[in-house]
């Protein structure tokens, strides 16, 4: 028998979502934004820049594969855990330079990444950081999308700035 959700139901549902762990709440991006469009993608980047782990990981399919400059990862939790670790030691910002939509199934984006070290990180995968170092690069990233979520993300460095 169905019924309108009570306050208790809503609280219980919220508790279940929280039990998934921070950054892994499987909320869909707002339906008003069509997957594969620029506004939809810009919101993903804004969530990333805002360290909104739940917001940006909502764009990942459960079996997402991520091939970045600094790591190869599988699954939303692994990506979130990786970036939590990075953001604890570096300030990272991504800016969209060029965006080419291939409809709801693929995107190519030119992204300028800026990293600023808050502490020394001698064994950072793409090269050692000393506190205060600032590093910028242009990267071409290919996002393959299935059912409105990223299934595979691959990034290739075009240039160090």
């Amino acid at each position, binding site marked *: 028998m169905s019924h309108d959700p009570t306050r208790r139901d809503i609280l219980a549902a919220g508790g279940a979502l929280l039990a998934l762990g921070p950054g892994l709440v499987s909320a869909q991006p707002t339906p008003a934004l069509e997957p594969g469009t620029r506004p939809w993608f810009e919101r993903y980047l804004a969530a990333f820049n805002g360290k909104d782990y739940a917001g940006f990981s909502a764009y990942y399919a459960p079996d997402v594969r991520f*091939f970045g400059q600094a790591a190869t990862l599988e699954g939303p939790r692994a990506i979130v855990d990786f970036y939590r670790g990075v953001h604890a030691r570096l300030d990272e910002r991504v800016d969209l330079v*060029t965006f*080419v*939509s*291939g*409809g709801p199934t*693929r995107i*190519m984006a*030119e992204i300028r990444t800026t990293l600023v070290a808050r502490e020394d990180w001698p064994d950072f995968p793409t090269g050692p950081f000393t506190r205060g170092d600032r590093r910028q690069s242009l*990267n*071409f*990233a*290919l996002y393959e999308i299935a059912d409105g979520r990223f299934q595979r993300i*691959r*990034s*290739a*460095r*075009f*240039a160090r700035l």
Partner: protein
Amino acid sequence: MEDEIVTRFRAYMAAFNAHDYARLVDFYDPEVQLTIGNGTVLRGRQAIVDFYTNVNDATTRQIEILQAWSDGDVLAAEIQSEFRALRDAPDFTSGPMLRGDRYYLNSFALYDLGPDRRFTRIRAAVFRREWRRLADRQDR
């Protein structure tokens, strides 16, 4: 049905793979800029033709389009290039090659389009690279 820009891109790659430079240049805007793998920017049609004529003297390069699409202003493509050394090529841009060696690049490329749909700027970033040395293959 495939986008007209992508169809044109396939024709461009066919001309490239056939070393048909007379046909190739028509795809480029006269002021085209092409950034090659080491960051060098080639400016103008002739600079590109000269560069590839030189590359193709020692190696042959075949490009396969894995996927391509366009929004009308920019074409995005994932391409796979195979370089094969026709003779020893100690000065090959990505490292010395011996005759028979092969070098593979998986790249993401952006082609900016002018009003007449000619390429005004071409940039590619290498996602994966792989050497397949003739000596390694013969050892197996």
